């Protein structure tokens, strides 16, 4: 039995400094720096090909970096690879499978690869939590796509690693199971596990993550706490529901760029928190000339942040400022 000691804080769970990786002429990672403290639930977002999986694979050792430094609990991923790999559990993005073995055999083999034996009760618990218990005797080919995805999650957790990396864990999973996976991630995180999550579902990151990094073209264009990022979005969407349907849009609202719904029952407009348009709207409504039944103001979501920062046409200077201002 070998004991791997994890240094006490302030050594971060994951530390990446100046990591760079190119595939031929394509620069996948361009000097990425990132520090994830232990116990954090970190969301890594970005469009396809942004460099998310390359960054994840630098941690797991599947990709060799061209430059920089990567440490897991202070251990170097190259020099101390046996230790760092034992400390990580990773769900790969692709549906990998081994058709020779059943679900339970797969988990036992995976345990063995990580030097863990006699963990039958934990395997039972994982199978239960991931709703795979009744399929434990099936080979992987007999499982649906969602079941295969859940098996990958079980494999990543079978050695109870202190860091769990989930690369698109809910892709192809139905809504109910997605929720149950979220609950599992929350439970694991609450028990002290550091979780790194990449996802295309922005609501997933919004729901689960404490801090978010948005990666685009191999660099972080944003790296901050989720709520701080969302505060950076200035506009609000306002929906005005009229007391009675309007034949045409009231002139003051038309001047503010509002649009009328097809049935004339409501109007929507975007107002900016910074340019006084919100106050102007309330002045118009305060005159009492427009009778309202209801009013809704929607704040910005992570999706707005994501789109603003990764949309080339809208990104130029603002994105650079955000990245420079919020990177640790």
């Amino acid at each position, binding site marked *: 039995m*070998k004991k791997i000691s*994890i240094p006490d804080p302030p050594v971060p769970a994951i530390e990446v400094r100046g990591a760079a990786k190119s595939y031929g002429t394509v620069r996948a990672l361009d000097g990425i720096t990132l520090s994830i403290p232990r116990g954090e639930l970190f969301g890594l977002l970005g469009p396809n090909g942004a460099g998310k999986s390359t960054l994840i694979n630098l941690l797991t050792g*599947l990709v060799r970096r061209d430059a920089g430094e990567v440490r897991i609990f202070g251990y170097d991923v190259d020099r101390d690879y046996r*230790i760092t790999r034992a400390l*990580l559990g990773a769900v790969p993005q692709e549906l*990998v*499978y081994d058709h020779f073995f059943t679900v339970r055999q797969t988990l036992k083999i995976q345990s063995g690869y*990580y*030097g863990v034996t006699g963990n039958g009760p934990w395997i039972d618990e994982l199978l239960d939590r991931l709703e795979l218990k009744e399929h434990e005797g099936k080979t992987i080919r007999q499982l649906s796509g969602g079941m295969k995805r859940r098996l990958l999650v079980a494999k990543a957790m079978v050695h109870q690693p202190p860091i769990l990396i989930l690369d698109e864990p809910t892709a192809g999973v139905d809504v109910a199971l997605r929720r149950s996976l979220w609950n599992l991630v929350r439970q694991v995180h609450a028990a002290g596990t550091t979780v790194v999550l990449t996802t295309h579902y922005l609501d997933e990151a919004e729901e689960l993550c404490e801090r978010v990094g948005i990666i685009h073209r191999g660099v972080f264009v944003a790296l901050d706490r989720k709520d701080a990022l969302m505060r950076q979005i200035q506009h609000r969407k306002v929906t005005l529901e009229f007391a009675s349907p309007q034949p045409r849009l009231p002139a003051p609202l038309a001047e503010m760029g509002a649009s009328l719904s097809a049935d004339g029952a409501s109007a929507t407009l975007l107002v900016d928190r910074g340019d006084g348009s919100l106050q102007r709207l309330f002045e118009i409504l305060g005159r009492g000339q427009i009778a309202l039944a209801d009013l809704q103001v929607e704040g910005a979501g992570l999706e707005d942040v994501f789109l603003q920062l990764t949309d080339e046409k809208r990104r130029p200077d603002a994105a650079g400022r955000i990245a420079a201002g919020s990177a640790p």
Partner: protein
Amino acid sequence: MSVLVEGFLPLPFRTLFFREIHRFFIVINQTLLAPVISALLYLFIFGFSLGSRFGSFHGHSYIHFLIPGLVMMGLVNNSFQNPSSSLMISKFEGNIVDILMAPIGHAEIIAGYMLGGMFRGLLVGTCILAASCLFGLPPFAHPLYLILVALLSAALFSLAGVTAGIWAEKFDDLALFPTFIITPLTYLGGVFYSIDTLPPFWRNVSLFNPLLYMINALRYGFLGVSDVDPAWSLAALSIVAVVLFGVCLQMLRSGYRLRK
């Protein structure tokens, strides 16, 4: 805070080794029964039907001459196929990442695949030998030498299988080895005939065939006679096996075709 990992060093290696054995037992018809049936057919056709026309080999019957060759043929083919096809299937299905992300040392990975291949090769060889009882077992002139040669040959071809499995990017790449290398070298390496029966030119050409030394070394172990020097065969086998282990180690260390 700390993480306890039970049996940290040996268990990952043992797991890989037993996985390799378990895997080929799941498809036992193609991995064990098929090569044994093929060898029995060779024994029947060449041993019974045609054997009497070949005369004797240093006082031994043709069928006794043939059995070591067929044992070696089954042994090398299956030692090669186990790791090469296992690695290729793992790459194809993507589960190779399970090994690459696990805390297993490079040498342990090679040893796990190698021993799995050796196990299958030696099992097939033993089964062919057992099945050849039907035709009369050959003597065991040098049993220790025989065991050593069998172990080294299995190790060498398992390591060749690991190398090929890492190198190959598709199943078609892998098919090059049995089709263009192993089968021709085995057939031309004296499984069915003694190179003394060849014209001098082709006899000399045959001396460049590494399989000739392996087959004759095994034959020496059984019959006590060989076309080539048995000591030289043993030395060559050992050297090539060590070199191949080094090649595999370098491939894994550099991440050749496994890590990006």
